[in-house]
């Protein structure tokens, strides 16, 4: 009897191991607002993966759902904050149920898009180029996105959202990665990225950095000013010497880093609890922490910063192309773009959005049409071997950045 009981216990234990393993998998989606359920509505035949042909749906009728990969704070339906909602009304109107999967890094977004299970992505410049080159996204049929006409010309047909004058996406907005600090513990606002790269920092062990290879560019932005002899012109076009300097700087930084972050909820919590008091951040995290009464503020340091210019793109394997088009047209519409960019804290892409923000100075504060301001912001771009200048093909491609990042973390 007793032996039988023990055997049963061990069998139960094994079953629990199996269930524990399956709950591990859920960790990936734990931070998403909604599980991205993939409905298998019979959609019209989509184009081949060459990426050269547009999706040609048989009719314009919605398919009942749209699966989206987005940055945190881009697709809000009121579940995080009842006042923050620019999706649920559209869902009712269009009949397309919105399923969102939050991407924590551009690399993760590219990986999710290659799975073919998502229709739409809000991709930053370092993801868009890989998606276009890989044929994962299609050129857009602009007749289906009337709101495209109102987008600032400065954001249209850029290398990161078009090929040969064909638009591959509808711009969402742009902004800078900021330097956040705890105002209780750091009394004077830092004005340089130098504070996060200082081996003798008084904030040692409480500094954070973004956990992605693209963060190497942040070190390069700082070195551009701090070490002019390296002659860095573009933080994404680094030759051997410049790259080595940036990597060395990040290895020094590792000594004062407490935690690297890619999950935005975890970094927000760390700032609120005070286990992290200084480091790179997004405006949406600042807003969230300040909303919870945490003593934090963020600045744009004098060296400038890395930043992003995001684009809504449609998958070449989209199972819900009509809903995807309708969603993209909706999300870049003046009202949605205004609400969205004001919540996320970035410059909106739609000119008419500036009249609809609740803060009338918003577009001015975020320099929506101030090209001089954005000269100091280096949009995320995929590094390639071709430096793009007379140095030729001696720059470090992304694969090297990725390897270096593993080595930096050690």
């Amino acid at each position, binding site marked *: 009897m007793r032996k039988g009981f023990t055997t049963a216990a*061990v069998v139960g234990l094994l079953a629990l191991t199996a269930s524990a393993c399956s709950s591990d998998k*859920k*960790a990936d989606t734990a931070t998403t607002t909604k599980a991205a359920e993939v409905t298998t509505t019979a959609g019209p035949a989509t184009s081949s993966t060459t990426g050269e042909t547009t999706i040609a749906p048989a009719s314009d009728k919605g398919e009942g759902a749209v699966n989206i990969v987005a940055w945190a704070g881009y697709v809000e339906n009121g579940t995080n904050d009842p006042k923050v909602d620019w999706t649920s009304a559209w869902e009712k109107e269009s009949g397309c149920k919105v399923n969102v999967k939050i991407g924590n890094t551009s690399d993760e977004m590219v*990986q999710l898009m*290659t799975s073919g299970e998502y229709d739409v992505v809000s991709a930053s410049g370092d993801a868009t180029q890989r998606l276009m080159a890989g044929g994962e996204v299609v050129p857009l049929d602009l007749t289906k996105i009337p709101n495209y006409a109102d987008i600032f010309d400065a954001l249209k047909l850029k290398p990161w959202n078009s090929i040969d004058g064909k638009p591959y996406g509808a711009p969402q907005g742009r902004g800078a990665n900021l330097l956040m600090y705890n105002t209780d513990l750091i009394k004077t606002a830092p004005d340089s990225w130098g504070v996060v790269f200082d081996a003798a920092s008084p904030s040692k062990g409480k500094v954070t950095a973004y956990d992605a*290879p693209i963060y190497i560019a942040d070190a390069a932005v700082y070195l551009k000013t701090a070490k002019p002899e390296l002659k860095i012109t573009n933080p994404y076009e680094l030759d051997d010497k410049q790259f080595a300097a940036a990597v060395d700087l990040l290895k020094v930084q590792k000594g004062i*880093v407490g935690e690297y972050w890619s999950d935005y909820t975890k970094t927000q919590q760390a700032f609120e609890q005070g286990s992290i008091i200084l480091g790179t951040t997004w405006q949406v995290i600042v807003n969230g922490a300040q909303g919870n009464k945490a003593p934090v503020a963020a600045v744009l340091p004098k060296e400038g910063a890395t930043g992003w210019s995001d684009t809504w793109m449609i998958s070449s394997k989209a199972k819900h192309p009509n809903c995807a088009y309708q969603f993209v047209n909706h999300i870049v519409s003046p009202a949605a773009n205004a609400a969205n960019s004001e919540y996320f804290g970035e410059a909106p892409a739609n000119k008419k959005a500036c009249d609809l923000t609740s803060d009338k100075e918003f577009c001015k504060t975020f320099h929506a049409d101030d090209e001089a301001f954005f000269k100091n912001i280096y949009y995320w771009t995929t590094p390639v071997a071709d430096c793009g200048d007379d140095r030729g093909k001696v720059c470090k*491609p992304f694969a090297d950045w990725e390897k270096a990042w593993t080595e930096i973390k050690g």
Partner: protein
Amino acid sequence: MTSAVGSERTTTGKRLSRFGQQHPNIKLGGLLTGPVLWLVLAYIGSLAALLIAAFWRVDGFTTKLVRNWNLGNFREMARTTVYRTITFRTIGVAFAVTVICMMIAVPMAFTMAKIMKPNRRRLAVVAVLMPLWSSYLVKSYAWRIIFIQGGVLEWAGLPSPGFGLTATVILLSYLWLPYMILPIYAGFERLPNSLLEASADLGGKTGRTFRSVILPMIKPSLIAGSIFTFSLTMGDYIAVGIVGGKSQFLGNTIYAKFGTANNLPLAAALSTIPVVAMVIYLMSVRRTGALENL
């Protein structure tokens, strides 16, 4: 009607069993097909697919799979010192977790099996299993709150190790402890009390009895438990991500190679390290008979 169907079934069943008795080889084959298919397809098949992927490579820019055979991933693994560092760190932590779990589990299992009354014993087993009823993630985040600055530990006036390897070792030891206690408990149950009494009668003190009587008898159980704790730690990446601060484990690196770099082949090549480590471990313990104790 129903009885007719029933009797027909019985006759078919009878015919089948008679056929089986006359052709023992076919009977054996039929019985084994299911389990063998499961083992070959689900387990060995997935491992083989992983191994094959390790010999491919990805296009550096589009990160698309390029299916031409090469040893580049293994060469890179051998050349890059950081993978060696991470491997040793992971094995070191797995070893520490195993030792800590053993040190806690042996006295606990002994108390449960030899000192507690039989009816309490069952309650104790349930209590040991209880933590497994809540999700692994919930437990990990709970420990994040314990270790965090200004968290439960500091509030209780104790020094917190902060996020890092120490916190990871503590969390993993807590998570895997039941997997160590149960096999050892089962081992103690099989150990007759008369042996302990005989040892005492012959003048064996506690230490001597433990070394000469208990330890040899429960060794297979210890090894069985250590297989659980060691392999679970080798494969973990979530607990490390939650309380590990900036430390990387093999699991994190494999996840990053797949999720961040989109480099499935290199991730697959790296995954062979824990597989090889476990195979070496299992082969070396096979002769101790511990595997029959699982």
